[in-house]
């Protein structure tokens, strides 16, 4: 789950990292009120995307009137497909230097990785690519924890006078990462102010979805992914469903098999209408899954691809058949079924729907693509 700037900064403050004491506002009037309390301020669109500044979503204001005017422009603006419905009003900060810091899960070392650069700002990727020495990469032993002496020694190579203060921030950043089950926590920029103190001016936080139920307090402040109505319905049932633009509806078990079914549809000249996966613990949810797939009016044919290991194909097929007979859709349905419970599943499809499942997945996909095109003509 991703967190907007103000929610991420709250997690930083909880770990003892200073941030501007800002105010979240949803209307120009509230922004003006916030500006009155804060003084010179910056109004920042709270959306889950980068390049907010370049899109005009971050503006400086000296008076409450100016702040309200900026808020009128920013609220309702769309930045990278994200509509802005709230802003953060932060006090302005005297910036002497901008740095970069992050901790993330690193698949390569299979542990946490700390990143630090004395040069921060928007172009950190280019800095990292062109001047690798300007970026400190420190793998951390998750068992032993952060080796503060090694970290301090490394930071001293970048900024001897401020090494102590920077190390202190990085230690707290690692604590924030551990405490929040983060996949990523990033401060860009980490600012050294003219008085020499450090402050986190922005924050990106992504928390591991698998840990959300033990991060209850945090989970409430995260921003759910933007979803369609059908995606929201599926999510409430703990089904993985993504709505797409195509015409061939997909119902399969397991993320890998579902993705493969979509790939094969495209390979044989069709387009998938959705991702819907009922594998693992969800294999008993065929009925609501099918209802959601068929509720998309673009679906012109349905392809059911089951390959049961843990998931029993007879249980899944029975659910699909029941829902199909109940909903009576006016579109063709194509099956291919293999693995655990396949004999019972195939017999049920034959007897109750009068349909012969395909033995090869490719044949089933070709039939579904052709059926969707026929239905469209």
């Amino acid at each position, binding site marked *: 789950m991703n967190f907007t700037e103000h929610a991420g900064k709250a997690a930083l403050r909880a770990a003892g990292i200073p941030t501007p004491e800002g105010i979240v506002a949803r209307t120009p009037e509230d922004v003006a009120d916030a500006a009155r309390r804060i003084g010179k301020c910056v109004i920042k669109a709270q959306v889950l995307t980068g390049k907010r500044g370049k899109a005009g979503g971050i503006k400086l204001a000296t008076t409450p009137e100016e702040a309200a005017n900026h808020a009128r422009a920013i609220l309702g603006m769309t930045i990278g497909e994200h509509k802005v419905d709230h802003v953060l009003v932060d006090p302005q900060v005297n910036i002497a230097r901008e740095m970069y810091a992050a901790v*993330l899960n690193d698949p390569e070392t*299979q542990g946490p990785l700390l990143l630090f650069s004395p040069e921060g700002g928007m172009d950190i990727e280019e800095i990292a690519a062109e001047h690798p020495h300007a970026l400190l990469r420190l793998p951390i032993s998750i068992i032993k924890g952060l080796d503060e002496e090694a970290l301090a020694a490394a930071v001293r190579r970048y900024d001897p006078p401020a090494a102590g203060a920077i190390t202190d921030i990085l230690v707290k950043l690692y604590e924030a990462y551990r405490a929040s089950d983060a996949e990523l926590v990033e401060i860009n920029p980490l600012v050294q102010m003219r008085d020499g103190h450090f402050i986190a001016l922005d924050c990106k936080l992504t928390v*591991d979805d698998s*840990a959300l139920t033990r991060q209850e307090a945090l989970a409430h402040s995260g921003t759910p992914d933007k979803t369609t109505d059908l995606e929201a319905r599926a999510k409430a049932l703990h089904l993985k469903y993504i709505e797409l633009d195509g015409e061939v509806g997909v119902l399969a078990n397991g993320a*890998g098999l579902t993705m493969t079914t979509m790939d094969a549809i495209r390979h044989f000249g069709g387009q998938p209408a959705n991702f819907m996966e009922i594998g693992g613990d969800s294999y008993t949810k065929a009925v609501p899954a099918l209802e959601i797939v068929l509720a998309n009016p673009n679906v012109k044919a349905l392809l059911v691809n089951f390959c049961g290991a843990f998931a029993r194909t007879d249980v899944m097929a029975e659910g699909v058949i029941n829902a199909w007979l109940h909903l009576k859709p006016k579109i063709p349905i194509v099956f291919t079924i293999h*693995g655990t419970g396949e004999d019972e599943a195939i017999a049920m499809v034959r007897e109750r729907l009068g349909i012969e499942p395909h033995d090869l997945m490719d044949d089933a996909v070709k039939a579904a693509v052709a059926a969707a095109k026929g239905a469209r003509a």
Partner: protein
Amino acid sequence: MIIGGKETVLVQGITGKQGTFWSERMRDYGSRIIGGVNPRRAGERHLDLPVWASAQDAAKDQKIDAAVMFVPPFGVKEAALDIIAAGVRKIVCLTEHVPVQDTMYFLAAARERGAQVIGPNTAGLVTTGVSFVGFMPAFNQRVFQKGDIGVISRSGSLGTLLCLNLVQAGLGISSFVGIGGDPIIGTTTRDALMALDKDPATKAIALVGEIGGAMEEAAAEYAASMKKPVAAFIAGAASPPGKKMGHAGAIVMGDRGSYAGKKAALEEAGVTVCATPNEVPGVLKARLKR
């Protein structure tokens, strides 16, 4: 990470519904299931097998070569640390949705003790006709027939389809290695490829990957040195790319992870990349003839 017929297997969570169901199937297939762990039912017998309070207790009575975990997500870290402390060298973690920081923790502990972890989020291991651990339909003869193709898959369902396609085409499977679908896993595609390359029962390899991460790219580096033919299928060509926040992901991953990048890396290494899983058996047959 190939499971042999002589290896003894301990089942964490043997008394649960899935633990019971799959323990019976594993034992019927020939796997040497020696018992299981459930702290609340220590001292009882289940499936006519002993139940211990911990893997460390079990290790006092029995030699344990491998352990398989039917354990809920938040219990995995503790169960894994128990198995590692018991000195078990091969650990199969089936559980999906394990918090990644927990995974990183017990993987680090396993590395310190020299234990091999397969998973999390794997369907398990099969050596056809000999032994299996996990929940693959090894006993289904349409899916598994003895042969000389080694299969590596991140996904259980897709791995099952691939094995089935091989059998439909008249081929058979030497060993199946399910490595798991999580972003951080104990045995990588490259590790599995190396093991099957060294396995005398395996003549060719079918590799099933997925978009995301850099494991296929790393496996390609090894594949370039191999003599055995490898055919791959990478799932996700038609999937929308995942949303990534922040700069750190881009700094660490660079341009790795895309379908195009993986396909190019594998082809560069002499691996044939197939458009659908159904194409894999034909490619392997042709390459084995050459």
